[in-house]
């Protein structure tokens, strides 16, 4: 029958199309990795995806996550979804998943045995909503680092501190030498992040979890957390002459020895590398501020919006597999300065600080990060509080703690 012939012909052409190398499906991937090191890292992902015969269409959005996320969200909710998009795993995309706009990746995950390879387990947990997996974690970024300039301490004539308490004690000597003891940029997330690090380091893991996970407002108003606020007050005094906005400008103060140190995530390491500094010789890194060596498992993940196009949906699965591929993981994370999400990859090329991080990870000393524990709304309120606290010396520690407890009481 003619009808059958036609179908056969169609099927043949279709088969031909699938067989040929020109089947490349374009998949747009949006992310906010635009700085030098970040762009190099993304290029590794694109290379790996292109090698599978598909095509990575780069949709970088300049600015930080704060600028990029509203654009991504409005594209997804507005009916113009991209092929895949970056978010910090945790609760940023929670509502999009609940609204059925994100693709369920459970099948791909079962096939790739993600539950076995992804380490620590909490990473996958924060991709899981209602027993289904919705995102692919690609790296671990931890906030708990204190970066110290060895030059600055030498100039001030004091030994490089080994933990936060020694550092606070060394602050007057630094100030006398004309060095800003602690660099904290003016962006709100920096002061708020620095406080969270202090909470986990000075207060300890239990305190951190009791406040952010259990959201115990009474505890947040209590003496344990008061100790942390005392430390934050020290930090505020040490940081009062910073006068820069961006985090990398603050990092640059440490690199050039204008500032003694900075509390910042491991992404700061890229800046030291670009400046040609060596860990241990030019700068010192103290995970957990030297007090409580833990690593928070925040980081980046890719989410896949539900698409109608069958080819693109197929390409999404390929991309999901590619992102977790051991080779991709190594290439990407070395450039990015973050830790890989698989325990079974070889990272010989990692520098001293990264190795410290890997060792802590291997010990399992991990905590979930605020992106995973708090909604964006509570995070924003916290940022408002701490940016005010750090910029306004008149604000008392007691007042700040009271307002902090109020935020925790209504947090979700």
């Amino acid at each position: 029958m003619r009808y059958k012939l036609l179908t056969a012909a169609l099927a043949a052409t279709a088969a031909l199309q699938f067989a040929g190398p020109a089947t490349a499906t374009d998949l747009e991937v949006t992310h906010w990795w635009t700085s030098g090191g970040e762009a190099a890292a993304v290029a590794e992902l694109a290379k790996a995806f292109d090698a599978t015969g598909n095509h990575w269409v780069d949709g970088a959005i300049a600015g930080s996550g704060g600028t990029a996320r509203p654009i991504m969200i409005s594209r997804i909710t507005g009916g113009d979804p991209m092929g895949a998009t970056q978010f910090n795993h945790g609760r940023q995309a929670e509502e999009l998943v609940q609204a059925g706009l994100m693709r369920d990746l459970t099948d791909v995950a079962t096939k790739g045995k993600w539950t076995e390879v992804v380490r620590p387990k909490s990473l996958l947990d924060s991709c899981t909503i209602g027993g289904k997996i919705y995102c692919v974690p690609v790296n671990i970024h931890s906030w708990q680092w204190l970066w110290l300039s060895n030059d600055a301490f030498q100039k001030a004539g004091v030994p490089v501190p080994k933990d936060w308490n020694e550092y606070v004690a060394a602050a007057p000597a630094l100030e006398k030498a004309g060095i800003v003891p602690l660099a904290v940029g003016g962006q709100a997330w920096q002061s708020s992040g620095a406080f969270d690090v202090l909470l986990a380091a000075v207060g300890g893991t239990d305190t951190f979890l009791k406040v952010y996970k259990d959201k115990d407002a009474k505890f947040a108003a209590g003496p344990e957390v008061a100790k942390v606020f005392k430390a934050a007050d020290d930090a505020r005094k040490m940081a009062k002459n910073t006068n820069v906005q961006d985090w990398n400008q603050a990092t640059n103060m440490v690199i050039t020895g204008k500032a003694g140190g900075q509390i910042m995530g491991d992404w700061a390491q890229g800046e030291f590398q670009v400046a040609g500094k060596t860990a241990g010789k030019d700068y010192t890194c103290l995970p957990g501020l030297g007090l409580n060596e833990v690593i928070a498992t925040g980081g980046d993940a890719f989410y896949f919006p539900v698409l109608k196009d069958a080819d693109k949906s197929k390409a999404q699965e390929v991309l999901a597999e590619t992102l977790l591929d051991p080779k991709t993981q190594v290439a990407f994370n070395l450039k990015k300065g973050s830790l890989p999400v698989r325990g079974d990859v070889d990272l010989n090329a990692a520098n001293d600080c990264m190795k410290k991080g890997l060792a802590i990870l291997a010990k399992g000393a991990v905590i979930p990060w605020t992106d995973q524990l708090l909604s964006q709304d509570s995070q924003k309120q916290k940022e408002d509080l701490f940016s005010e606290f750090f910029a306004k010396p008149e604000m008392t520690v007691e007042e700040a703690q009271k307002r902090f407890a109020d935020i925790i009481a209504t947090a979700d």
Partner: protein
Amino acid sequence: MSKSERPSRLFRNLNAKVASIPMILTALVVFVGGTAWTVLYSFTNSKLLPRLNFVGLDQYYRLWATPRWLISIENLLIYGVISLVFSLVIGFILAALLDQKIRFEDTFRTIFLYPFALSFIVTGLVWQWLLNPDFGIQGVIRKLGWTSFAFDPLYNSSIVIYGISIAALWQGTGLIMCLMLAGLRGIDEDIWKAARVDGIPMWKTYLFIIIPMMRPVFITTLVIIASGIVKVYDLVVAQTSGGPGIASEVPAKYVYDYMFFAQNLGQGFAASTMMLLSVMIVIVPWAYLEFGGRKRV
């Protein structure tokens, strides 16, 4: 006869009425409809996506208990009073000076109006640098030898809003000057001659004769300035991004931040409804006096 005249009133100028339908629809659906939708959802606990889950006035209670919102309102008031008073006064004085039949009037007019050609973002960046203590005005004067000179409004929580107002005045005063100048040029020469014959001093002529005659121009100017005040956002973002701390936050920024960064639409809608309400409180009595009074005449 009279019966056939009645429908003609409705259909008179039919073309014009048909042509204005799109605009009427836009106004009703986009402006009024959008406003109503926003107000409605401000009573819900919508987070990232709008949801009709009513929580009464909770968003408003939270809004008015938030220090950042209170600071925003206070800043808007200070900024509003400063821009209103100074741009009117400076604009009028500049216009009056230009109106003295001076040479190179065109050149001066261009110079004064020029900043208006810049967007608020560019203005903000320019003044961010000018007011930067290390590179800007303070740095230059310190290099000249006066080492104790201090002028860093953008880094001082208690005066940062004035630093922002300076930039806004620099940008906006030129336009006000041009509007005022147009108003002054519209005054009949004979009025001046009559005033001179009567021996009235020039400043008195301006204050008691010319300014009252320029009432329509002042009202136009007032509306332009006032709408600029309420929507101020980009200038703050470019100059300080709300800092130091939250000392230079403004309501429009609160709305944007809570709708998109904090993923809390309900809270953002509540804040924007409060902004609308504050505009109405100013506009409605004024509109009543302005347009309602005419019927009685």
